[in-house]
């Protein structure tokens, strides 16, 4: 049985995370998961909590431009880093081509996996603007969908590839993304 005295003293810490281009500072418990930080502390509920074990990908967000599963990362670990969530995909110029692709090609049904799936898809296209079906399948293989059988998700990402003119969306800071060829980390990952 856990010692109750330890439990009653909940330690806290301050963390500053750049979320969707804005620095936010919050007092949190060190054990707080990034997914709960985003959802419960920042009300960014587009990122979903699905499995706790990094299997389903409903919680995928970007940390420093890399898709990560926010259910198995502590919010504290995101301190000093850039986090990007689904809420940031749409800009003043309109929807991201990935978002449009999902609507045009029926890439979603219940919508629960969709934010994570789109964040993974956007990351793929930034690294590889013209992916094959096999490359898309591999890229989204860590994102589960119970509704679509993946077919239309793959088509949605292809649609986005064909309607992005080779470019991803702008970063919230206004800096253009590095070109895929120079993005070594992305290349390594994919």
């Amino acid at each position, binding site marked *: 049985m*856990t010692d109750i005295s330890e439990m009653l003293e909940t330690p806290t810490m301050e963390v500053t995370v750049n979320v969707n281009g804005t620095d936010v500072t919050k007092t949190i418990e060190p054990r707080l998961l990034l997914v709960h930080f985003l959802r419960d502390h920042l009300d960014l509920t*587009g990122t979903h909590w699905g499995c706790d074990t990094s299997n389903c990908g409903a919680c995928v967000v970007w940390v420093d431009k890399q898709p990560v599963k926010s259910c198995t990362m502590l919010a504290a670990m995101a301190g000093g880093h850039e986090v990007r*969530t689904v809420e940031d995909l749409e800009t003043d110029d309109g929807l991201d081509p990935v978002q449009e692709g999902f*609507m045009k090609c029926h890439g979603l*049904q219940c*919508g*629960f996996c969709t934010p994570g799936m789109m964040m993974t898809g956007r990351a793929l296209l930034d690294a590889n603007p013209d992916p094959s079906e096999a490359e898309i399948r591999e890229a989204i293989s860590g994102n589960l969908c119970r509704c679509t059988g993946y077919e239309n998700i793959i088509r949605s990402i292809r649609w986005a590839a064909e309607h992005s003119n080779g470019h991803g969306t702008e970063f919230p800071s206004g800096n253009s993304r590095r070109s895929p060829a120079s993005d070594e980390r992305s290349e390594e990952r994919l």
Partner: protein
Amino acid sequence: MTTTENPPTEFTDDATVGFGRTPRKEDVRFVRGKGNYLDDIKLPGMLHGAVLRSPVAHARIVNIDTSAAEAHPKVAAVITGAVLEGLNLAWAPSLSHDVIAILATDKVRYQGQEVAFVVAEDHYSARDALELIDVEYEELDPVVDARTALDEGAPVIRTDIEGKTDNHIFDWESGDAAATQAQFDQADVIVTEDILYPRVHPAPLETCGSVANMDPVEGKLTLWCTTQAPHAHRTVYALVAGLPEHKIRVISPDIGGGFGNKVGIYPGYVLSVVGSIVTKKPVKWMEDRSENLISTAFARDYHMHGEIAATSEGKILGVKVDVLADHGAFNNTAQPTKFPAGFFHVFTGSYDYPAAHCKVTGVYTNKAPGGVAYACSFRVTEAVYLIERMVKRLADDLGVDEAELRMKNFIQPDQFPYHSPTGWEYDSGNYPAALQKAMEIAGYDELRREQTEKREQVQRSGHGELMGIGVSFFTETVGAGPRKHMDILGLGMADGCEVRVHPTGKAVVRLSVQTQGQGHETTFAQIVSQVTGIPTADIDVVHGDTDNTPFGLGTYGSRSTPVSGAAAAVASRRVVDKAKIIAATMMEANPDDLEFDTGVFTVKGSPDKSVTIQEVALGAHGSLELPEGVEGQLDAQCVYDPPNLTYPFGAYICVVDIDRGTGEVKVRRFIAVDDCGPRINPMIVEGQVHGGLADGVGMALMEVIAFDPGGNCLGTSFMDYLLPTSMECPSWETGETVTPSPHHPLGVKGVGESATVGSPPAVINAIVDALAPFDVKDIDMPCTPAQVWRAMQGRSFRTDLAITDD
């Protein structure tokens, strides 16, 4: 057929009125991360609940000490079975005339059963406090294998039922045993097979949860809940908790997938209500993945023995089935009262033969309750799997092609309406055309040639993959159902719909059913649009809120389109009928002289004289003097009681390649021809089919909830309960035939579960076909590499139990 070979086209077209590939209205919020799912709900002062669950499968509760948990400064309440007993809420009626425990009092009966509930300031603290509850258990022997549940001396699970001395729940039969035996007596060939449809879990990506807010001043309970059936839930809460029904509002927000997992009422929902009553604050309960897999409605768990009798020419004469159904610790299957085995007795399938009989015995085991879920159409899934495996086995024994054997035995198009040997009236169908079409898309003959060549090559070289081709054909029975035959907990299975046209010609349609991703906000607007001519974009769909929608039983069993879709069509027709009278008044014509097309009324012979339905709407709300008996405004409602079920059908072909060294199965191609009648939105229908096919591949290859001898659940996370990813799914190849239902106002039949029902036997038939060189005649799901590899050696194992040395 890959994406790269065929560049994708947009799935949507420009259809603005009625049926067509209209983009989905709901997507605009979902792609922005602006869906409103249960866990997104945040109320002022809201507390958080967490459930303490049993770590063991069967044990007597000796003592529960909650004092340490209660001392936690962030804990607002700790609720145990004893507390609930004081409120007369420890037990609740199940959906199948049994009871379920909200919190265990006497015993725990499965691993993961609810034992206590903590309400705290935040989710983490509530979880902390669970650790502080000390429960003393006296362990009892569990019943793990359903096949031993009725053995002499087996531990009795339901000691709460007075006089209960065994684990028997029910015996049920259908068909004519004597007539079937007579057919078997004259048969040339009898093939028997033992078939397991193992326990699986619907595992929607969003788990189950609720937010309860009991307003202490108004005495009104608002319950946000992940439910597929908000109205049925409200009535049950009224009956169970004794709350007046008008003081309960159930809101089902956006649902992250249901698949039958969200039909039932779970203890957590009730506990959030009790928590809110006790603390006088809103209480949220949201289960985690492990809780979802270990405790909520599982599916299948049917142990089937089938026998099929035929002539030497391959004409089927009769089928006999004996089923042992594992219902877990409480009989809580969600199905119509008169059908304890659901619609399993549609197992005679798509074939014409004179006699059939089935007997189903339900038993208790120390496992989570459930059974009817995961897009099963009330056990049609098990029925189709049985008959399609039997037909394949018969074809193999007779040495004929399985597609050919099906063609020979199909119910013919001129035999509809067809009365089946177990009492169903199939409404319409053209089975040979659907199978023919699937075979054409597949290039069936060419595939068989390729397989012959590959087998010869493997035989020569000893290397190469094993290729298999599997066929299945299914007939679904959906759209439950006629009220006189079908009810759940005494509630007749009819559904209501209200259509109201506003003064400016825009409309709202209110539904009793609730979408979980099927796109109701789009398709029901399209139905109203199709009938009234009002553009789809001008029609808003309201659902999932009992205060704002008419009563009905909800969305499961592919019943939304057959039942509520019909209600929407009939209500819309009533709107048009009323509009016609008003239009006639406006144009000073006789209503009988009016014609109506796509929202415009014209006077026959005077094409220049016309009014639109929008102009009529304004007139109906204005100062126009209406004829005697016509009320102002433009609205109508309907409660639709379906005269029969609908019978969608389809032909599926699967091609697999198996690695001889590892037993890994790769699904190379999957061809699905579905006939669900006319398609309201073909884009959405195809999406539904794709999802069901992935379910089928998942169940066939990887999904199973198994148990070890101690009753420990072996599938409690997505690391153990494997779901198909993009890597296991092929690029689906779909096709359609269109045979309208003669009794549905729009001819549509429903499609949500077709592919889940139809696809598993196609995959397994393909695997058995691939393994023919190893003399494998049957294999149980899931066909993991281990299972297939062992089958090649004639040592396949029970997939529903832990693997042990043998």
